[in-house]
C-alpha cells in the first residue's frame, strides 16, 4: 500500500493527536482538508470563531507540516451555529477576512442541520459569497431528514446560479447518491463508523455508480471516528476487486480535481514539499517540546516499535 498516495479531503485535525498524524503519514496520506465546523461545544461569541479560523490557517497547518502532510482548509459558518443569530451575523463579517488566504480551498462546510429559517438564511448568504468571489462550496448534508436536506441544498445552489461542478456535496449515502450524482455534483462519502458510511457499503457504491466525481473522506473529529478511513477503504476496495486505477480516483484524483479548481490545492505542493528538517522553511520542532531534535523523513518512515517502553 505504501506506493499509493491518498488525500483525506475532510478531516478535523484540531481534535486529533500527533499519533494520528503519524499513522496517517505512514498510511500514505499526503494532503488533508480541514473544513471549518462546529467543535462539539457550542461557541457563544464570534471571538472564539475568529481564533478557530486563525487556528486552522495557522497552527494546525504547521502541526501537519511537521509530519510531512500538507494541510488546507475551508472557511464558513456551519449550519448548527447559524441558529445563533447574533453569533452568525458576526461570523459572516469574519468570513471575508479569511476566505482569500492561502490554502483556503472552499467556503464550507455549510448547509442544513435542522433546516430552520436561520440555517437557510446563512446558507444562502454564503453560497452568494462563494459565487461572488468565484469560490468552491462544500456542503454538509444533515444527519436527520438527510434526503430532503440534501435535495434542498442543491436546489439552493442552483437557485443562486452556482454550477454543480463548483460544489462538493458531502456525507452522502445509498439514499442520496443517485440524486446528487445525477445532478452533476461532486459526490463525497464519509467513512465514519456507526453513523455515516461503512466501507463495505462504499465498495458496493463504487461498483454500482463507478468513479466519476465520487470520492471519500474520513471526517474524523472529536467523536469515535477513524482518521485512516481513506487508506483502509482503499485496501478494502482492492481486496474486493476494484481496480487500482479506480481506487486512485476515489481516494486521491477526484478530490484533487474537485478542490484543484480553487487554484489553492496543487499536487506540486506535496510532490515537491520540503523535507521535514530544521534546515527547511517549516523548521524546528515545538510539537515535541523541550528542544527535542526534530524528526526527519527517514525517522518518520522508520518509526520505532510501539511497544518500546523507553521514552527519551
Amino acid at each position, binding site marked *: 500500500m505504501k506506493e499509493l498516495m491518498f488525500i483525506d479531503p475532510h478531516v478535523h485535525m484540531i481534535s486529533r493527536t500527533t499519533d494520528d498524524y503519524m499513522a496517517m503519514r505512514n498510511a500514505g496520506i499526503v494532503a488533508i482538508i480541514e473544513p471549518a465546523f462546529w467543535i462539539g461545544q457550542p461557541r457563544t461569541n464570534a471571538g472564539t470563531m*475568529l481564533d478557530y*479560523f*486563525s487556528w486552522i*490557517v*495557522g*497552527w494546525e*497547518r*504547521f502541526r501537519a507540516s511537521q509530519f510531512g502532510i500538507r494541510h488546507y482548509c475551508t472557511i464558513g459558518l456551519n449550519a448548527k451555529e447559524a441558529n445563533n443569530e447574533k453569533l452568525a451575523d458576526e461570523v459572516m463579517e*469574519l468570513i*471575508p*477576512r*479569511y476566505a*482569500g*488566504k*492561502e*490554502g483556503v480551498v472552499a467556503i464550507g462546510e455549510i448547509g442544513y442541520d435542522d433546516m430552520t429559517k436561520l440555517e437557510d438564511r446563512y446558507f444562502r448568504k454564503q453560497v452568494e459569497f462563494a459565487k461572488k468571489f468565484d469560490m468552491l462550496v462544500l456542503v454538509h448534508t444533515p444527519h436527520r431528514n438527510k434526503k430532503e436536506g440534501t435535495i434542498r441544498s442543491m436546489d439552493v445552489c442552483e437557485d443562486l446560479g452556482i454550477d454543480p461542478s463548483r460544489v462538493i456535496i458531502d456525507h452522502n449515502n445509498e439514499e442520496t447518491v443517485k440524486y446528487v450524482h445525477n445532478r452533476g455534483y461532486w459526490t463525497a462519502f464519509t467513512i465514519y463508523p456507526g453513523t455515516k458510511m461503512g466501507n463495505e457499503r462504499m465498495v458496493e457504491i463504487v461498483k454500482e455508480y463507478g468513479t466519476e466525481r465520487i470520492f471519500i473522506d474520513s471526517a474524523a473529529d472529536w467523536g469515535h471516528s477513524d482518521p485512516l478511513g481513506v487508506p483502509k477503504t482503499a485496501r478494502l476496495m482492492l481486496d474486493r476487486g476494484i481496480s487500482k486505477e479506480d481506487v486512485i480516483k476515489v481516494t486521491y484524483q477526484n478530490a484533487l480535481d474537485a478542490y484543484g479548481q480553487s*487554484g489553492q490545492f496543487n499536487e506540486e505542493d506535496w510532490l515537491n514539499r520540503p523535507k521535514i*528538517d*530544521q*534546515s527547511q*522553511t*517549516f*523548521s*524546528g*520542532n*515545538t510539537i515535541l517540546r*523541550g*528542544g527535542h*531534535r*526534530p524528526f526527519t523523513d527517514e525517522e518518520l518512515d522508520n518509526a520505532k516499535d510501539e511497544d518500546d517502553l523507553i521514552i*527519551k
Partner: protein
Amino acid sequence: MSKIPKETVAIRQTILSWLKRCLDENAITWLTTTADDLMRDPEDWQLFTSFSLTPRHTGKGLPGLTANEIREANRLRKGWDPSAWTADQAGRTFLLLSYAEQGEEEFLDKIEKIFITSDLGEAVALYQALPVYPFPEKFKDRAAEGVRSNITTVFNGIALNNPYPMDYLDEGAWNQVVLKALFVGSPLYKILGVDTRANATLAKILVEYAHERWSAGRSVSPELWRPVGPFIKDEYIADLRRVLDDPDPIQKQAAVLALSASKVSDKEKLLRPYQSTRDEMVQKNITWDVIGRNHEFESH
C-alpha cells in the same frame, strides 16, 4: 502632505524597485493600483483582501537582490537584511507601507487586526517587516507576542536576521528571544545583537538551562556559551570545565571562546591545558559565527 516619515516612503519605493525588476507587468500593475487605492480612502476589506491575495499576484520567487541593493536597504534602515525576502513578502510590505499613509492611528489599528487573523505565510511576512514599519516603538508588545509563537517559522521571522528585537525589546523580552532560540533549535549567530545585548541575567538563565538539559541526559548547543562568556562568574567555572573536557571539538571550541571573552581573573590558567585547541582555532579562524554555522550544519 505625507503622514509618515520620509524614510518609510523611501523604503516603500525601494521595495517596489526590486519587484519591478523581477515581476511581470500584470503583477506590478496590480500592486501599484492596489497601493494607490490603499493610500486614498479604502474600505477595510480592500486592505485585508489585498494583503491575503498578494502571493497569487506576485508568486513566491526570490527577487535575488544584488549586493548594492542589500547595502542600500541597510542604509535606509540600519541592520535591515531583506536578502531572503520572497516577492510576496516584499509585496505585502509594500502594500502595508502604502496603507500607512492613512496615519498612525489607522495604521496601528489595521495592522493589529491583520496580525490577529494572519495565516502562516502572513505572520512571517508581518513579523519580518517590523523594522521597516513607521512608528516602530508601537510594536514592542506585538514583537514580544511573536517571540511567544510556537510556530518556529514565525518565531524565526522575528528572531533571526531582524534588527527589531535588538533595537526595541526590553531586557526581559530580549532574553526570551535568545533562550527560546536555543529551545527550538534556531541558531544564535543569526540573532542580530546577540553579543551587544548579552547581559548577566541572561547568562544566569542560560547556565541554568544547560544544567536542566544535562540532568535530562541531553546535549546543549555550543552557541549557548556565546552570550554567557562576558558574564562568566566564578560559580560557572565548573560548568565551563565540563564543556572544555567535552569530547566533541565544537563544544571545546565554544568553551575556549567563552572563557577568552570572560573577565575571570585566572582564565589563562584555566585555558592553558587547551593550548593546542586555541592554536588551531586561531589558525582556522574559528569565531562564534563559524561555530554557529558548523553546529547548524551538523544538526541536520
